[in-house]
């Protein structure tokens, strides 16, 4: 077994036989001719044919990968029609009395060299386009079209580099994966492969092509960028399992997308996603989450060298809300301290940071930071369906103080005539035993609870999250935790509030039925778990 490493451009696993890509326009030989007229006519005919092929490729690409990615073929048509390019071919035939193939080949070399010598990477990369159109023209001269040997078996296509037209022209039904020795992950080929949902690995190096043969068994892991040629049985078994898991996941996605989160006997629950950055919005949509149950706002503080301004925060929140129209997005206010430290906050070093100045305690101590965030949140609230959630609550007085600050921020906005939504929901995290125990007192003050099971477990079981040696003592499904959640749920509902769970426990499908029976209204999980939990909900029957 030999392993090659490159850059994976589409996450999937392919296992199959290697097929080395063969170009029809291989060696061009120089042949002296006497009938220049007929040679010039051959060029004209070949050009017409090549343009016709490119038009067909353009149409196919337009369908497969969209207008932006197809535009390159329109450019290829224009290049083939270029006056200087055509003059050069004609000149060489006329002055040297040589065959058309040779004239095209020399012309291609000259133009490619001109572009390769330019000092801008965009123009340098055009050398590949010149070679691509010239190879097509030469193929048309030798009356062949471009294309791969036809075989009925699907194969892993391996090449030095694939021109965009070559990638698009391949019969998708027969391609398992692409592996190229060169090329970048931003090349047209990589972009096209990604759009075609075919695993591709780019840039595995020159050695690769020397050591492979048609028919070799190989595994392509688009997740890691690895190519295993002639894999050993152990690797084959491991990657087969990985492939099956990936296929099952994608199949589940297809089956469950757009379906309701409803049990066999008709009980519904919301399944939202937890995210930590604007970049994760794509995965919220891809996994069909009903909303965002926990948007960690810390990234705004962690990515900055100084306190993020109101404007910076406003733009980020607005973007999230606008990207998820109609969906509820619950943004948690600043939750740093403990395991998340930010230098410019200049927090004191604490003996026991998990129980120290963190989260809401920072916000209530340094209200300027808190108010800036709240102003940004309220200003963004007009762009979607916003919920605001406060972390690390332990007492009624804290919640009272928070609500007073919220009221004053809204009053300020009103005075300045800055619009905000009147429908913003306010909620608190239930992540300390204290909050759960007094949840009957807290529920009337808020619209919702969200249980943070990670901290709730740490504080209830007195087990440090950061200490791996404690792991044997941590029972994540401890009855104490489940009772605290149940107590909070009952108290929330008694006072007209709703309750969700946003900790890791929410994704534990062995507890999905328990949570449904407690009457939990919402489970918020990592985007990739949304459909797994939906699947579990749909299999559950509470009437039994």
């Amino acid at each position, binding site marked *: 077994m030999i392993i090659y490493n490159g850059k994976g451009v589409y996450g999937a696993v392919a296992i199959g036989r290697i097929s080395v890509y063969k170009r029809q326009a291989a060696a061009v030989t120089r042949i002296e001719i006497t009938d220049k007229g007929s040679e010039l006519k051959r060029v004209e005919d070949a050009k017409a044919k090549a343009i016709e092929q490119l038009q067909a490729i353009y149409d196919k690409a337009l369908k497969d990968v969209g207008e932006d990615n197809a535009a390159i073929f329109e450019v290829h048509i224009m290049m083939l029609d*270029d006056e*200087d*390019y055509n003059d050069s071919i004609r000149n060489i035939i006329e002055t040297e009395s040589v065959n058309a193939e040779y004239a095209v080949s020399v012309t291609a070399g000259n133009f490619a060299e001109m*572009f390769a010598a*330019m*000092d*801008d990477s*965009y123009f340098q990369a*055009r050398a590949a386009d010149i070679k691509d159109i010239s190879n097509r023209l030469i193929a048309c001269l030798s009356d062949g079209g471009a294309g791969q040997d036809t075989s009925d078996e699907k194969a892993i296509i391996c090449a030095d580099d694939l021109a965009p037209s070559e990638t698009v022209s391949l019969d998708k039904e027969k391609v398992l994966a692409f592996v190229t020795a060169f090329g970048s992950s931003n090349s047209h080929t990589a972009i096209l492969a990604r759009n075609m949902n075919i695993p591709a690995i780019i840039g595995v190096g020159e050695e690769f092509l020397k050591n492979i043969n048609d028919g070799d068994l190989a595994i392509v892991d688009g997740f890691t960028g690895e190519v295993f040629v002639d894999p050993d049985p152990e690797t084959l078994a491991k990657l087969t399992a990985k492939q099956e898991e990936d296929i099952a996941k994608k199949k589940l996605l297809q089956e469950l997308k757009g379906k309701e989160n409803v049990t066999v006997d008709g009980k519904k629950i919301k399944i939202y996603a937890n995210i930590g950055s604007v970049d994760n919005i794509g995965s919220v949509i891809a996994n069909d989450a009903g909303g965002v149950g926990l948007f960690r706002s810390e990234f705004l503080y962690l990515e900055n060298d100084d306190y993020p301004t109101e404007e910076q925060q406003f733009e980020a929140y607005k973007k999230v809300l606008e990207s998820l129209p109609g969906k509820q997005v619950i943004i948690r206010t600043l939750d740093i301290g403990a395991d998340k430290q930010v230098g410019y906050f200049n927090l004191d070093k604490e003996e026991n940071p998990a129980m120290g100045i963190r989260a809401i305690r920072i916000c209530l101590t340094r209200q300027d930071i808190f108010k800036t965030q709240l102003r940004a949140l309220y200003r963004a609230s007009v762009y979607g369906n916003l919920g605001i959630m406060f972390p690390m609550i332990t007492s009624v007085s804290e919640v009272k103080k928070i609500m007073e600050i919220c009221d004053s921020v809204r009053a300020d906005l009103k005075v300045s005539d800055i619009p905000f939504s009147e429908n913003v929901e306010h909620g608190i995290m239930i992540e300390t035993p204290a909050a759960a125990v007094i949840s009957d007192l807290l529920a009337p003050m808020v619209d919702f609870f969200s249980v943070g099971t990670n901290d709730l477990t740490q504080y209830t079981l007195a087990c440090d999250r950061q200490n791996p040696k404690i792991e044997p003592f941590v029972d994540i499904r401890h009855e104490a935790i489940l009772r605290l959640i149940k107590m909070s749920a009952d108290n929330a509902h008694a006072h007209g509030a709703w309750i969700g769970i946003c900790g890791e426990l929410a994704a534990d499908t062995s507890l999905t039925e328990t949570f449904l029976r407690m009457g939990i209204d919402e489970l918020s999980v990592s985007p990739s778990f949304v459909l797994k939990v939906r699947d579990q909900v749909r299999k559950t029957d509470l009437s039994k």
Partner: protein
Amino acid sequence: MKTFEYVIKDEVGIHARPAGLLGKKCKEFASTVTIVKGDKEAAATKLMALMGLGVKCGDTVTVKVEGDDEETCAAAIEEFLQANL
């Protein structure tokens, strides 16, 4: 002959697609259009030569238009540049 200057705003510069479209546009007129950058120049109808100028974002090019319809042609080319480059 009419000449005018234009500063390229497209972030890649005069790249393949707009260059090709510019050529097409120029062919609608009787006048010849030449793009000059520094000491190099290229006919606007010649795609490869035009790209060979290597015009980047922020570069100033001089556009020379010469022919019977140079007034209308120059106006149309200026409009094209504003919209595409």
